[in-house]
């Protein structure tokens, strides 16, 4: 940075970091979509699992989703943010070193994820599968990014914060909060941990995180990028800056509440479900406001749509944003969700968002960015246009096939005959009916990947015909913003005081009893009236105040943080507190004292035996939750197909919860006792032997791989610390019980000419399957597996 005269200086932007992130965006994008095509093949043709455990669908699906979201979109987000932030603030990033640590640290995270998922190292929570050491690395890298970003904000040479930067700020603070809370866990080894939340608590925290990962990783950053790159490509300012302000505040305030719509008709308390549904529907307004703002920015520039592939990608991306954000609230309506949940409709929905909105937005940015980063023109417009059309057809094939398949599945599952019983009791028949749709999806995904190959060739040729460009800007020396100046005055200003008063009164109202509540409410109304009067009397002062807020990054960040914390706290805190009031163990004495507890006691989950716990951990390792739910909704057709509907008490000890979100296979909540041990053995070895139309991978490695019983004593102790009511005797006898319960299964299989080791993975998985939906199973006599009838493991009556 050199001073050219007393008033002006030259700032050279750091575009090396933008080039680096752009390149890895493409590389990881290919890997993410290639794995996507592979797992789509596996769903169509089970042989594509190749009989290899590390290539099985359950493990690779985690790799696909994480690579698409965090590697492809994430790196694209960093590229766009580093490029636009410097230009909007008219300054170089505060620290090149921090930028580089951000880059290499993030690539290390992705590489670690790419290794750990095929290995089966996972936390078993959707989009939060990374194991705890990688989680720590994520936090470190994110903090480094945040420090660099906010440091740059503090050093800026432009007083005002453009709306794109607001979206970046919201992303940084919200992702930090979400990621830390959802990944709180107790490690048991370097590659394994148990989340501190269990059952319904884990469910609400997970989907508060899961949905807002969509909101604040897949939506707010691309929206910020839209407000920069779309207006640059269109060469005209955003249609309505006012609308963008309303868009921002309403979006971040509403989105954070919508998570429970992933748990409709589950054991989550009904009020939380309803709240999630209502706020999801309200999201229609800001989402469409943002979409219209984006599309209307092209007013007077629509002719570019014919010639400029960048505009084409952006227009389709924003249109898909509108479609996905229409479909999301639609699916959040309980009656619609009853049909769509667990089906491929949801898969179609999320891919219209990730392929249509996120990917096309990223492609548009890359096509706009790479020529400028290399000071040249795009190598081939025709090739870019071809990519656009191939990609668009690919997406349409993908989402329409999933819509058709999903709605068909929903109707098929719920169909009742004239006698009031299931019209199609055989689940696998529905899967067979979806096969053509799965193959169409595979074709769509392959076309999408083909388009990316064209883009790679085009962009490589573009870069090779130019050379890295150096871009600078002249800025007045004296114009540097002092972010801290006036921040205190701003925080203690009348509007801020009013806002704090409203929030504080709200909290007091929430805590107050029936006598105090009306008084607080009255005071609340007085404050609101005072706000209106103050606003009427001091319009200019209020306007000046908000102008200051926009210029003070610190105050703006605090307000954004408050906006997202309110929704999260209101939904999560009562669920945590309410669930904590339910004891994790209900004794006869407690029921005698309070007869109302009898119903809870009837359903209360009992701790898993060591062998069942081992099986459950394997279930998580293999990513079984990708295809199997453990949550029977209170519908007649589900009760008829799977058994009595699931109660909240039944999964309180599950760390993590495994309610699932998709049913490519059956719900397993009450599978225990439905089939005998031999059936499960045969099914794991070759699913086609018991279900000819199944597309499930074979898990023959369960037979050959063994487990160390000693490990599970430690894991039981960890769960004990989290509240599972294990006794000292349980810990002392854990290894013996592991083997004695296993012996029962081994003996049963031996009676059917099947030989397996007592400590094989197969035995643990069978024990877990037989436990699901039932109470404790016979453990056998320590050291003597023949003490109990082997068949008892299959026929024991539940004792809840």
């Amino acid at each position: 940075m050199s001073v050219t005269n007393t008033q002006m200086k030259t700032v050279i932007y750091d575009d090396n970091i933008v080039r680096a992130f752009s390149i890895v965006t493409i590389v990881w994008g290919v890997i993410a979509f290639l794995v996507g095509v592979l797992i789509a093949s596996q769903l169509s043709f089970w042989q594509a699992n190749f009989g290899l455990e590390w290539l099985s669908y359950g493990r690779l699906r985690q790799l696909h989703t994480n690579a698409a979201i965090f590697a492809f979109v994430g790196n694209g987000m960093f590229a766009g943010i580093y490029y636009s932030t410097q230009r909007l603030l008219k300054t170089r990033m505060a620290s090149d070193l921090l930028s580089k640590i951000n880059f290499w640290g993030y690539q290390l995270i992705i590489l670690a994820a790419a290794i750990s998922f095929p290995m089966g190292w996972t936390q078993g929570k959707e989009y939060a599968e990374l194991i705890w050491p990688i989680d720590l690395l994520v936090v470190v890298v994110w903090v480094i990014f945040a420090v660099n970003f906010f440091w740059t904000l503090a050093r800026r040479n432009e007083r005002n914060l453009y709306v794109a930067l607001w979206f970046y700020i919201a992303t940084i603070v919200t992702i930090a909060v979400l990621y830390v809370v959802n990944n709180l866990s107790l490690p048991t080894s370097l590659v394994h941990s148990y989340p501190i939340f269990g059952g319904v608590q884990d469910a609400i925290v997970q989907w508060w995180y899961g949905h807002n990962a969509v909101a604040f990783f897949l939506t707010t950053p691309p929206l910020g990028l839209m407000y920069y790159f779309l207006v640059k490509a269109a060469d005209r300012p955003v249609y309505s800056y006012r609308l963008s302000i309303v868009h921002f505040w309403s979006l971040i305030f509403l989105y954070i509440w919508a998570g429970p719509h992933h748990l409709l008709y589950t054991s989550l308390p009904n009020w939380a479900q309803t709240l999630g549904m209502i706020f999801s529907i309200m999201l229609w307004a800001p989402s469409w406001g943002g979409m219209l703002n984006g599309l209307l920015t092209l007013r007077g520039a629509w002719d570019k749509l014919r010639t400029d592939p960048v505009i084409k990608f952006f227009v389709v991306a924003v249109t898909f944003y509108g479609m996905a954000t229409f479909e999301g609230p639609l699916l959040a309506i309980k009656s619609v969700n009853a049909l769509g949940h667990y089906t491929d409709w949801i898969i179609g929905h999320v891919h219209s968002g990730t392929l249509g909105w996120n990917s096309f937005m990223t492609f548009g940015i890359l096509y706009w960015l790479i020529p400028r980063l290399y000071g040249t023109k795009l190598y081939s417009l025709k090739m870019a246009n071809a990519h656009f059309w191939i990609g668009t057809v690919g997406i349409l094939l993908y989402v329409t096939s999933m819509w058709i398949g999903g709605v068909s599945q929903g109707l098929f599952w719920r169909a009742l005959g004239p006698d009031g019983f299931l019209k199609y009791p055989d689940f696998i028949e529905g899967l067979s009916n979806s096969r053509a749709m799965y193959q169409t999806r595979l074709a769509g995904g392959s076309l999408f990947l083909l388009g990316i190959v064209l883009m790679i060739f085009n962009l490589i040729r573009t870069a090779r015909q130019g050379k890295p460009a150096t871009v600078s800007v002249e800025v007045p020396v004296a114009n540097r913003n002092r972010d801290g100046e006036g921040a205190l005055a701003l925080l203690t200003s009348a509007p801020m005081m009013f806002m704090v008063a409203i929030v504080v009164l709200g909290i007091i109202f929430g805590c107050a009893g029936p006598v105090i509540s009306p008084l607080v409410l009255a005071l609340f109304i007085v404050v609101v009236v005072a706000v209106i009067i103050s606003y009427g009397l001091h319009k200019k002062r209020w306007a000046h105040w908000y102008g200051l807020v926009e210029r003070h990054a610190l105050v703006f960040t605090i307000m954004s943080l408050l906006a997202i914390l309110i929704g999260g706290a209101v939904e999560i805190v009562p669920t945590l507190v309410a669930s904590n009031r339910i004891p994790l163990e209900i004794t006869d004495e407690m029921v005698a004292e309070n007869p109302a507890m009898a119903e809870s006691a009837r359903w209360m989950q009992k701790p898993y035996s060591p062998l069942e716990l081992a099986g459950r951990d394997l279930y998580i390792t293999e990513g079984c939750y990708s295809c199997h739910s453990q949550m029977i909704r209170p519908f007649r057709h589900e009760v008829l197909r799977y058994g009595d509907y699931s109660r909240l008490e039944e999964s309180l000890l599950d760390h993590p919860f495994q309610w699932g979100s998709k049913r490519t296979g059956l719900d397993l909540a009450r599978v225990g006792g439905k089939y005998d041990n031999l059936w499960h053995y045969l099914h794991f070895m070759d699913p086609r032997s018991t279900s000819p139309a199944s597309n499930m991978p074979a898990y023959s490695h369960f037979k050959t791989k063994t487990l160390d019983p000693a490990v599970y004593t430690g894991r039981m102790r960890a769960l004990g610390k989290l509240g599972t009511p294990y006794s000292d005797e349980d810990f002392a006898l854990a290894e013996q019980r592991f083997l004695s319960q296993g012996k029962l299964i081994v003996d049963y299989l031996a009676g059917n000419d099947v030989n397996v080791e007592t400590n094989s993975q197969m035995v643990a998985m069978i024990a877990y399957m037989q436990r699901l939906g039932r109470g404790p199973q016979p453990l056998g006599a320590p050291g003597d597996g023949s003490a109990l009838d082997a068949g008892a493991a299959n026929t024991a009556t539940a004792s809840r």
Partner: protein
Amino acid sequence: MFREIVGKGDLLNWPVVGLLIFMMIFAGVVAFMLLGLRDKRKLDEIAALPFAPETVEDNHTEGGAGNER
């Protein structure tokens, strides 16, 4: 009815509180924008920030539209 439902669970005040706070702030932001409190000239100035002039050095050609290849 409402009192009965809320009265049965002390924690059920929280969603109502959240909803109230949300409505207040959302209504405030919308009113703030739609009543035209913000200076339009100032907003136009901020909206034009992405178009700040910059200098491209050491390049062959100016980046941008592609070749008709």
